[in-house]
């Protein structure tokens, strides 16, 4: 499955994105290697979410190329589906299917997309629910769970598809403070197991301990890109410094 000419799992080359007149992404170039963990931060409206939503084509990029595991994202539905099978996503507002029990949430896509038989899908679902430490909630409905639990279910749901990479879109920002850690813990475990991750977050502790690289975005551009040590201790750009001083003094 891997593209022999490049060891990058994700390649974004000169990507632009417009919403009408408004330019959300400007000339994005990004490579993510297998097993790499990237944290993207930046002020709101800087294009972080748009960037990762382009990777699994929830948003369509306007110019440039995006290549995932050797497959280029085009208008072809077949390509998009193939890519989406490789790329898991976790949303800020969990987006669990409200009308299905937790375990059904985890089984649906396995059965429909991967065509896995029901019994096996159920087994996989329970396996990952145990991994996020809430197997006892399997038969409840999403609304009966706390936000932290829902977000862990959402992570398990993504894992059930055995993706090559998981995108996190501000996974903790809709959570009450006491629930943030339980979600970050699950994410840290995942990282240790070698999952490729791109994570939009403002949790700088998480970024320091887990990320291989931190990317700072502002006004639709990648402003700075560095290992966490360097990024936090000696940021080059003035915009990065201003941003960091704001969120770290909080």
């Amino acid at each position, binding site marked *: 499955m891997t593209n022999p000419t490049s060891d990058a799992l994700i390649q974004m080359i000169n990507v632009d994105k417009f919403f009408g007149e408004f330019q959300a992404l400007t000339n994005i170039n990004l490579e993510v290697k297998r097993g790499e963990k990237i944290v993207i931060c930046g002020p709101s409206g800087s294009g972080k979410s748009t960037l990762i939503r382009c990777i*699994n084509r*929830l948003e369509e990029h306007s110019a440039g190329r995006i290549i995932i595991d050797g497959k280029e994202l085009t208008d072809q*539905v077949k390509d998009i*589906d193939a890519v*989406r*099978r490789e*790329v*898991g*996503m976790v*949303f800020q*507002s969990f*987006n*669990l*299917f*409200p*009308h*299905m029990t937790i375990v059904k949430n985890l089984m*649906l*896509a396995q059965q*429909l*997309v991967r065509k896995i038989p029901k019994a096996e899908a159920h087994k996989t679902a329970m396996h990952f629910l145990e991994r996020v430490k809430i197997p006892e909630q399997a038969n*409840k*409905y*999403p*609304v*009966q769970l706390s936000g932290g639990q829902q977000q862990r279910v*959402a992570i398990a*749901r*993504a894992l059930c*598809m055995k993706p090559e990479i998981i995108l996190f879109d501000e996974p903790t920002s809709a959570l009450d403070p006491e629930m943030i850690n339980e979600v970050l813990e699950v994410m840290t475990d995942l990282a240790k197991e070698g999952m490729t991750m791109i994570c939009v977050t403002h949790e700088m502790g998480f970024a320091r301990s887990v990320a291989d690289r931190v990317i700072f975005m502002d006004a639709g551009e990648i402003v700075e890109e560095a290992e966490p040590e360097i990024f936090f201790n000696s940021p080059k750009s003035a915009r990065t410094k201003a941003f960091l001083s704001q969120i770290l003094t909080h």
Partner: protein
Amino acid sequence: MSFDLSLITESIPKMLAGIGITFQLMFLSAVLGLILAVILLLMRISGKWYLSWPAQVHIYIFRGTPILVQIFIIYYGLPQFEFIRDSVFWPILREPFGCAVLALTLNTGAYVSEILRGGVLGVDRGVLEAGSALGLSARQKFIYLTTPIATRLALPAYSNDFISLMKATSLASTITLLDMTGIARTIVAQTFAPYEVFISLAIIYMILTWIIQKSFGRIEKYLSRYVNP
């Protein structure tokens, strides 16, 4: 004005003899209307102008004119044209029952389609995005996510429309059908006593309304079990 109680006890069983027609009109039109509504809805959200336009025109016309006019156009109006009397549809259009079902179906279909559209638009975009991110196709998302959620959202409005439909079946009496209202009007014409008969009939309709409301309440509760478990 004295109230003739014996006339009430006498006429209620007679009117109930027409409840079969009322029910047939109601359920047949409800089922066909729902099918039509779904088709109209799919046409509207297809994104193709040559599908969405006819659907919108249908909805505009049938919501913008009185159902009584629609019934009369179909029953008395259409046979004005010989090609309709020669067509394969004539066996249906010849019968007042067929005309009533057709009119009620076209009418309720337009209203229900709008209700369903409201339900579909009410489905959280994030849920659908999650479906996309998991690799579900547009069809799969529509069947497994949009349909069940939109159904729950649309149900309260739909139950109101169902009651309107039930009440509208009474207009079939204007094209010779002997539903409950048709029988009641015949009794009134023979006994010249409108109050006793019409008030009894109104009570029967109110009981039907109550039953429909209760039934939909049950369904709603069942469908909402994941919202208020």
